[in-house]
């Protein structure tokens, strides 16, 4: 395989407060290769956004953060990069597509001007050329009447159109890596599919790697090539999308898939994973998932020893469970692949 575009190595992120320390990310390894889509899934607070944002050093400046590990982008460690280098990378080589498009456009600046800004930050373009390119971009993301839209203000845009505009800004400089942080959670379900199409087309056109952060398994099934499942700031399972959906080897992944609502067959109660994700300032010892785990059933090793992310059958399939092997023999088939 070619060299990874982004390689996160042993990333740990802590938010120290006066009374306790929140371990938001704990020893995460993650790669994104050119052209592929990596889906990062997990519950709220599992550390999926923090992993990516801290790798790009985009956490809020007001937060006190301790970061260790490496975030290698094309071989350069972003965590060691100067502000100037970072600025050159952001937007030019790595673009972040935000979660909430409603608030990400400056309300007092015309959309076209904001697009021009995104273009001109990294390239010397004349105003007219930037305008032409901006309208082209709006067209690319499927904006109806791009010429008119160009000179409108964000309040004249619907949520879906704003997200299209954000994607247009994201791909303005043909970045090698796109990071989409729950790009559709703030949108209507009917708009979601359109936005994902736009994102997919944009990725195809630019040949960019895409890191898709979401808690929507349907989205993952549809978009991702590889999946990284996170729990309590750690990667618990990773593998290609088919393997993960057909034969999960971690009870958490299994639980997630099993709790997807079924639209076929007889009506039944929605399944859930019992309990809540752990308090990140006080993660249980051993496997962080053991208090909620159906497989653990009080086994001592789950409480005492932290499971490593080890290879299980199949290429690149890894699971951080002491009893990953057991799961295979159980041959439990969860909800199988569902597409939204």
């Amino acid at each position, binding site marked *: 395989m070619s060299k990874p575009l982004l390689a996160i190595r042993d990333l740990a992120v802590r938010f120290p407060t006066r009374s306790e320390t929140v371990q938001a990310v704990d020893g995460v390894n993650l790669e994104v290769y050119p052209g592929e889509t990596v889906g990062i899934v997990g519950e709220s607070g599992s550390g999926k956004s923090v992993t990516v944002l801290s790798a*790009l050093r*985009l956490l*809020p*400046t*007001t937060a006190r953060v301790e970061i260790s590990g490496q975030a290698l982008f094309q071989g350069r460690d972003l965590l060691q990069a100067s502000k100037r280098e*970072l*600025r*050159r*990378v*952001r*937007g*030019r080589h790595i*673009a*972040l597509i*935000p979660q*909430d498009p*409603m*608030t*990400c*456009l*400056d*309300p*007092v*600046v015309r959309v076209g001007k904001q697009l021009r*800004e*995104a273009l001109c*930050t*990294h390239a010397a373009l004349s105003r007219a050329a930037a305008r032409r390119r901006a309208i082209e971009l709006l067209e690319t993301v499927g904006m*109806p*009447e791009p010429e*008119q839209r160009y000179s*409108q*203000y*964000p*309040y*004249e*845009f*619907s*949520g*879906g159109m704003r997200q299209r505009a*954000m994607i247009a*800004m994201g791909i*303005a400089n043909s970045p090698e890596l796109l990071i989409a942080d729950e790009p559709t959670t703030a949108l*209507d379900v009917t*708009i979601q599919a359109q936005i994902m199409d736009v994102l997919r087309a944009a990725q195809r056109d630019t040949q960019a790697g895409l890191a898709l952060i979401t808690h929507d398994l349907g989205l993952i099934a549809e978009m991702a090539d590889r999946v990284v499942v996170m729990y309590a700031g750690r990667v618990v399972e990773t593998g290609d999308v088919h393997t993960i959906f057909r034969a999960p080897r971690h009870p958490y992944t299994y639980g997630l898939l099993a709790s997807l609502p079924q639209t076929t067959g007889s009506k039944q109660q929605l399944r859930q994973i019992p309990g809540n994700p752990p308090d990140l300032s006080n993660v249980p010892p051993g496997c962080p998932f053991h208090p909620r785990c159906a497989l653990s059933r009080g086994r001592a090793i789950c409480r005492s020893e932290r499971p490593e992310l080890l290879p299980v059958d199949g290429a690149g399939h890894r699971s951080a469970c002491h009893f990953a092997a057991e799961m295979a023999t159980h041959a439990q088939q969860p909800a199988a692949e569902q597409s939204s």
Partner: protein
Amino acid sequence: MNPPDESRQPQASVAAGNGGGMGMAHDAGAPIRSAGLVRRFANNKAAVVGLVILGVFVFLAVAAPLLTGYDPTNQDLSQAFLPPSWQHWLGTDNLGRDVFARIMYGGRYTLMIGVIAVGIATLIGVPIGLASGYYGGATDMVIQRGADILLSFNPFLLALILVAALGIGLQSVTIAAGIGVLPQFVRIARAEALSIRETDYVAAAVNFGERSAIILWRHVLPNSLTPIIVYATLNIGTTILIAAGLGFLGLGVQPPTPEWGSMLGEARTYIFHAPFLMTFPGLAIFLAVFSFNLLGDGLRDALDPNLRD
């Protein structure tokens, strides 16, 4: 706030975009459109009263030579201390100068001092405050401690100290009044920058690799303008008072220039002999400050999306 219309169809949205007015009234983030602004402002009676008073003062100041034949500095001791009459509407002062003419011409100085002083405070204070709030850290610390020191003085006292340093005269009074209110502009701009710094669109601009200076200029400044405009309008009243106070103490604009504060100061000697000499300049100062206060309040109401309709 109402969410924007998700179901808006492309065809319909073009019309909605051109029609503008309806949609924007409901969107907090909508840029201020003059049509809606004027309408909201016109509905506010107090604000209109303020604007009318101010309009009258401006008109009197500008058209003074056409409205009166009297020269504001022309002395005629035989006509001193005349009470208001048809000849001299507001009477004459101790040197026989027509008070009405002096108030009309004096408006030129008073209004000019007020506007220019606030202009100084805005142009210097706002950039400092925005940078302070946006960059934070040591920059913020140094600037805010400086502002603390200045804020520990009453604006008038600060202006007084500055006049002591700069000397007496129109120019130094204007500068002193401006610097007197400057620290508050630093504070207000900083507060705006602090909140705008945390918005998603600033975060997005950082994501796209923009420079801080450009973000400040293109995003932070335009989004913080509304409260700054309101605050500046309200502060024109304050600077007028400061200038008038300095004039009253004899530290402001020097005679024979007809400035309201110094007119008041000169008239003080004759308070029992000719009380009208103090009444009219005092009334003029009161009305001018009052009009700016009404205007500022009206602007705030018209510009504040949370108070609309």
